[in-house]
C-alpha cells in the first residue's frame, strides 16, 4: 500500500474517531456562546469529511460530496422550496458575490447568514483536512492538541462556558492520539513492518498511563483560583441587571420567578466588623405566588405609610421581645456597592453613621432605604446596634395562637397567605411531617429538620425552573429535591403556612468569609454576592419573629435556650464552616506567616486527599480490584498452569482425566497454539508435539479419543498419563 493512502484498519479508525472528538470540543462552546444554531449540521460535516478521508475516496469525488452536502444544508436552512428546484442557487450566488464585496470593504457586520454559514463550512473543511494531514502525513498533533486546550481554558476563564468536562475529555483523547501517533512515527523511522498496534506492549501501557493520570488529576485537590472569576463582571457589563434563564448570585429585588441555576459571583458587596456572627437581613416578603415571592401592597398604602427616621433614633421595627434587653451588640459595615439600602441583623435597634443620612423603612418589607440630601444612597460605612436574638424554647412551645387584635388582623391575614392552586399534596406532606407534634415550635422544628435529610441536595447548577402551571415548591419537594437557599426557604415557608403558622420569607446575606481578627477582638468578615441568602421567620405570639434555617449545609446562628438544658447559644466558631453558601476552604488561622501558610497548604492537600479517599473509597477499592484483576489476567500464563497442576495433583480417579485434558486444551490455546474449530484432536496433537518437541500430546489425545469416541476410559488412564500431562503443563508456562 502506498504510504499516502489511509490504511483502513481499526487503529486508523480510532485515530479519526479521536480527532473527531477533539474537533467537537471546538464546536461545543460555539453553540453555547454564540447564537449559532444547527450544530448537528456542522458535526455531520466533520463526520462526513473524516469518513471520506478514512475511506480513501478519490479527491474529486470527495470534493463533490462535500460541496453537495454544504449546498444541501444551506438550502435546507435558509431557502424554502424543494431541493430539486434549483432557482435558489441563483439567489445564493448573488448573495455570495455581494458578501464578497462586503468582505473586501471590511464590512464584516453586514455579512448575511448563508454566507457566514458557507464560511464556517469552509473553515471546518480546512480543519478536517488539517487533522487528516497531521494524523497521516506528519504524525504529529501536539500543536492542535495544545491549541484545543488553550481554546477551552481561555473560554472557560473569560466566558460562562464551563470547560471542566471538555478539558478532561480532550486531555484523554489528545494523549491517546499522541500516544498512537508516536508509535507510528517510531515504526516509520525504524522501517518496521507492522500492521497493527501491538496490544500488550503499547496499547495497554498507554491506556493505563492515560487512565491513571486522568484519575490522579481528577482525584487530586485543586487550589482555588488566585484571581476572582472575571465572568460575572463581564456578564454584568453585558446584560445589565440579570439575564434570562440563568441567575446570577447576589442580591436582586425581583423574586417573582424563582428557580434555575445561577452563576457564582465572588464580587465583594461589603465587609463587616462583627462582635458575633449573624446573618444580614435586607427585606422580607409575604406573598407567595406559586412561582416566587412578591409584596402585596394594600390599597391603604401610600407615601405616608413609609416610616422615616434619622440615625440614632430607634428603628421602628419590633422583631421580637427579648428576655434580656441588656444584651445588645453592634456590627460595623463597610459597603463596597451602593444598593441604596442597608443590611442589618435580626433585632436591629439603631444605626449610626459619620455623616448625616435619612432612612425610610417600608413596613411591608422591613427594607431600610438610605437617603442623603434626598437622593437614595447607602452610607459607605455604618454601625448597627442590635439585640442579640435569644429565645426560650419553653416560651416558644407554650405560645399558642393568641386572640390579640394585631395578631388576628395583620399577622394572620398577611403571613398565612397561599396561592389558590397550591397542590394539596404540600399540605398533606406538612401534616405528615408534623404528625404528633403538638405545639408550633415543635412543628416548625420538624419541618426545618425535614430538609436536612430525606434526599435533599444543595446544588446551584442543576436547578430546574418550574414549568408553566407547576408550583415552585411542589416541584422542589416532590420532584427535584435539589436546589439552593430559595428552594429550601420558600418550601419551608409554604409548608408552615399550610398549617396556618404565620411565616415570612427573608432575604439578605450570610455572615460571609472570615478575614481576620482585629485588635479590638472583633472579627472582620467579607460578604460577596455568593453569600446572598434567604431564610424563614416564624411569628410566635408574645415572642415575635423567630428565624429558622431550612437550607441544607447552613446553620442558624440564633440561640435557642432551654431552662432544663441550658447549653445554647450556639458556638459561633463551630458554625463558621457551614454558614457560607459555598463550602469554603478551611480557614487559615493566622494567615500571615509563610511557614504556617505552607503548612496549611500541605494540610489542605492531606485533608482533601483524605476526604477524597473517604468519599470515593468504594470507587478506589473497585479500581484497585480492577487493576489487580487486569494484572492477574495478563500474567495468567505464569501461574495458571501451576494452579491447575496443583488442583489436579490430589485427584486420583480416572474420571478427572477428561476435564484435565480439556483444561490442557484451553491452556495450550492461551499459550498460542490455537486449535482451529475444524481441526481434529489428532491433527492438533501432531502440531502441538511438533512445536513442544515431545510426544506427550499424542499419547494423551489417543487416550482422550478412546474416551470420547469409543465411550470407554481404560482403568488407570489418569494415573498413567498424569505425569505427561504435568510435563505438558509445565512446558506452556510463559
Amino acid at each position, binding site marked *: 500500500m502506498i504510504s499516502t493512502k489511509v490504511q483502513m484498519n481499526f487503529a486508523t479508525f480510532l485515530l479519526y474517531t479521536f480527532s473527531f472528538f477533539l474537533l467537537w470540543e471546538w464546536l461545543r462552546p460555539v453553540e453555547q456562546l454564540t447564537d449559532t444554531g444547527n450544530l448537528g449540521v456542522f458535526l455531520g460535516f466533520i463526520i462526513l469529511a473524516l469518513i471520506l478521508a478514512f475511506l480513501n475516496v478519490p479527491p474529486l469525488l470527495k470534493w463533490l460530496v462535500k460541496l453537495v452536502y454544504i449546498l444541501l444544508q444551506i438550502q435546507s436552512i435558509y431557502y424554502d422550496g424543494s431541493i430539486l428546484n434549483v432557482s435558489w442557487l441563483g439567489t445564493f450566488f448573488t448573495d455570495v458575490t455581494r458578501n464578497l464585496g462586503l468582505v473586501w470593504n471590511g464590512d464584516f457586520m453586514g455579512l448575511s447568514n448563508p454566507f457566514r454559514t458557507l464560511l464556517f463550512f469552509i473553515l471546518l473543511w480546512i480543519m478536517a483536512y488539517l487533522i487528516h494531514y497531521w494524523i497521516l502525513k506528519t504524525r504529529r498533533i501536539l500543536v492542535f492538541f495544545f491549541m484545543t486546550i488553550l481554546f477551552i481554558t481561555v473560554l472557560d476563564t473569560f466566558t460562562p462556558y464551563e470547560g471542566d468536562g471538555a478539558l478532561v475529555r480532550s486531555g484523554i483523547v489528545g494523549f491517546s492520539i499522541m500516544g498512537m501517533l508516536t508509535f507510528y512515527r517510531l515504526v516509520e523511522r525504524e522501517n518496521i513492518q507492522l500492521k497493527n498496534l501491538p496490544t500488550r506492549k503499547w496499547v495497554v501501557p498507554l491506556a493505563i498511563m492515560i487512565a491513571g493520570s486522568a484519575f490522579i488529576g481528577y482525584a487530586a485537590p485543586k487550589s482555588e483560583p488566585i484571581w476572582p472569576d472575571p465572568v460575572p463582571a463581564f456578564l454584568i457589563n453585558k446584560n445589565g441587571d440579570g439575564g434570562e434563564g440563568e441567575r446570577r448570585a447576589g442580591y436582586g429585588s425581583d423574586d417573582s420567578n424563582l428557580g434555575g441555576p445561577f452563576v457564582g459571583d465572588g464580587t465583594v458587596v461589603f465587609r463587616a466588623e462583627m462582635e458575633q456572627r449573624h446573618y444580614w437581613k435586607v427585606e422580607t416578603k409575604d406573598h407567595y405566588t406559586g412561582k416566587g415571592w412578591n409584596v402585596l401592597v394594600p390599597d391603604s398604602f401610600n407615601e405616608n405609610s413609609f416610616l422615616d427616621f434619622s440615625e440614632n433614633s430607634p428603628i421602628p421595627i419590633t422583631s421580637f421581645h427579648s428576655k434580656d434587653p441588656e444584651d445588645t451588640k453592634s456590627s460595623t459595615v463597610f459597603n463596597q456597592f451602593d444598593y441604596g439600602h442597608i443590611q442589618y441583623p435580626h433585632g436591629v435597634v439603631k444605626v449610626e453613621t459619620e455623616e448625616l443620612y435619612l432612612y425610610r423603612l417600608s413596613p411591608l418589607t422591613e427594607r431600610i432605604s438610605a437617603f442623603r440630601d434626598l437622593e437614595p444612597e447607602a452610607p459607605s460605612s455604618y454601625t448597627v446596634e442590635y439585640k442579640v436574638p435569644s429565645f426560650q424554647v419553653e416560651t416558644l412551645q407554650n405560645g399558642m395562637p393568641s386572640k390579640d387584635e394585631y395578631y388576628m388582623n395583620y399577622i394572620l391575614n398577611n403571613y398565612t397567605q397561599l396561592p389558590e392552586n397550591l397542590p394539596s399534596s404540600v399540605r398533606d406532606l406538612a401534616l405528615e411531617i408534623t404528625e404528633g407534634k403538638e405545639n408550633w415550635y415543635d412543628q416548625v422544628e420538624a419541618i426545618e429538620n425535614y430538609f436536612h435529610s430525606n434526599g435533599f441536595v444543595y446544588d446551584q447548577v442543576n436547578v430546574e425552573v418550574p414549568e408553566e402551571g407547576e408550583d415552585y415548591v411542589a416541584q422542589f419537594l416532590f420532584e427535584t429535591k435539589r436546589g439552593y437557599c430559595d428552594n429550601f426557604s420558600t418550601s419551608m415557608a409554604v409548608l408552615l403556612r399550610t398549617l396556618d403558622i404565620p411565616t415570612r420569607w427573608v432575604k439578605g446575606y450570610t455572615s460571609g468569609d472570615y478575614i481576620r481578627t482585629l485588635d479590638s477582638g472583633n472579627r472582620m468578615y467579607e460578604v460577596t454576592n455568593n453569600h446572598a441568602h434567604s431564610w424563614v421567620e416564624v411569628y410566635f405570639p408574645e415572642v415575635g419573629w423567630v428565624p429558622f434555617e431550612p437550607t441544607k449545609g447552613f446553620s442558624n446562628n440564633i440561640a435557642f435556650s432551654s431552662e432544663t438544658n441550658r447549653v445554647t447559644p450556639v458556638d459561633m466558631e463551630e458554625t463558621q464552616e457551614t454558614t457560607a453558601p459555598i463550602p469554603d476552604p478551611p480557614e487559615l488561622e493566622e494567615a500571615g506567616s509563610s511557614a504556617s501558610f505552607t503548612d496549611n497548604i500541605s494540610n489542605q492537600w492531606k485533608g482533601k486527599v483524605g476526604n477524597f479517599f473517604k468519599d470515593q473509597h468504594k470507587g478506589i477499592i473497585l479500581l484497585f480490584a480492577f487493576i489487580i484483576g487486569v494484572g492477574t489476567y495478563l500474567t495468567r500464563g505464569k501461574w495458571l498452569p501451576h494452579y491447575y497442576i496443583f488442583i489436579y495433583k490430589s485427584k486420583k480417579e480416572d474420571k478427572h482425566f477428561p476435564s484435565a485434558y480439556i483444561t490442557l486444551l484451553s491452556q495450550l490455546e492461551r499459550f498460542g497454539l490455537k*486449535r482451529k*474449530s*475444524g481441526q*481434529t*484432536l489428532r491433527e492438533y496433537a501432531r502440531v502441538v508435539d511438533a512445536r513442544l518437541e515431545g510426544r506427550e500430546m499424542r499419547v494423551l489425545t489417543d487416550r482422550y479419543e478412546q474416551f470420547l469416541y*469409543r*465411550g470407554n476410559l481404560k482403568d488407570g488412564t489418569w494415573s498413567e498419563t498424569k505425569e505427561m500431562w504435568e510435563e505438558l503443563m509445565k512446558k506452556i508456562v510463559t
Partner: protein
Amino acid sequence: MSTQINPAIERILDNIDKVMTGKRDVAELSLVALLSGGHVLLEDVPGVGKTMMVRALAKSISAELRRIQFTPDLLPSDVTGVSIYNPKEMEFEFRPGPIMGNIILADEINRTSPKTQSALLEGMEENSVTVDGVTHKLEKPFFVMATQNPIEYEGTYPLPEAQLDRFLLKMKMGYPTVHEEIEVLNRAQKVPPIEDLEPVVDLLELQKLQKEMMDVYVDPSIRRYIVNLTTETRSHPKVYLGVSPRGSIALMKTAQALAFSRGRDYVLPDDIQYLAPFVFSHRIILKSESRYEGLSTEDIVTEVLASVPVPIQRLVK
C-alpha cells in the same frame, strides 16, 4: 500409536502393492467401499492403472472380475444379459450378462447412452436385475468400479446427479510421482506380475470382514458431526443442492470401514475428515455462478470441513 492395521486388510493391500506402485490410498479406499458394500467411481484419464488396480483387487480376494467396456452403441441387454429362445427346450433361456460377477469394472461409463447406464446403476442399487420380467439376483459380494473420463471430454453422456449418488465414493487416481513412474517402468520390463498374483483372502472371509465392520462403534458425537457436515453443505450459499441423507449414511458406513481397516473399533473425526471429500464431492451441485467462479465441489467440502467444529467434548445427554 498402539492401533495396528487390520491383518486381513493389510494382506490385501500388500498384495495389491506388488503390482501397483504407490496408490495405496486408492487401494485402501476401494477396499473401504468394498467392505461397506458400495461402489466406486474413478474419474481419470486412461492409462494411469485403473484396470490394473481392479484386477489386482479381484485377484487378491479371489473374486471373479468382469469387465464392461462402455461404448455409445452398447445396449442394456449387453450389460444385464438376455433371454434367448432355445429350440431344443422349447423355451427362453437366460444368458447372464457381464453384470453377473463379483467385481465389475465398468470402463468409461459416461461413453454410453443413459439407457445402458441406468441398467448398470439399477443393478448397483437393487443388487438384482430384471430381464423379461424375471428378477435375477446378483452375486455377493457385488462391487462395481466404474471409470469415467473427465466430463469435459467430447462424446460423453454425463451421469445425472441421482445416479452419481449411487456411487459410495468418487475418487481420482492421479498420475504417479516421478519415482513411482520410474518404478512402474522397472516393473514393466519384466513379465506383468499380475498373472502371478495369488489370492490372499477368500470370498467367505471377505463376507466375514464385511460383517465385523458393522460393529465398529460410532459415537453419538460423531453422528452429530456427520449430520452437521451434511447440513452445512445444504445451507452453504454457493451450493445449489447439498448432500442427501444417503450421503450421511455413506459417510458413516465408509468411516466405519476405514476405522475397521485401520484396526480400530471406533470412528474418529479424522476418518470422517479423510473420507468426506470422496463421499461428498459428487453429491453436491454448485450454483452456476459459483461454477463460473472456478469453484469446485472439493473446495466447498474443504470449506465445510474447516468451518464445522470437531466434537471435542461429550454430548450432554
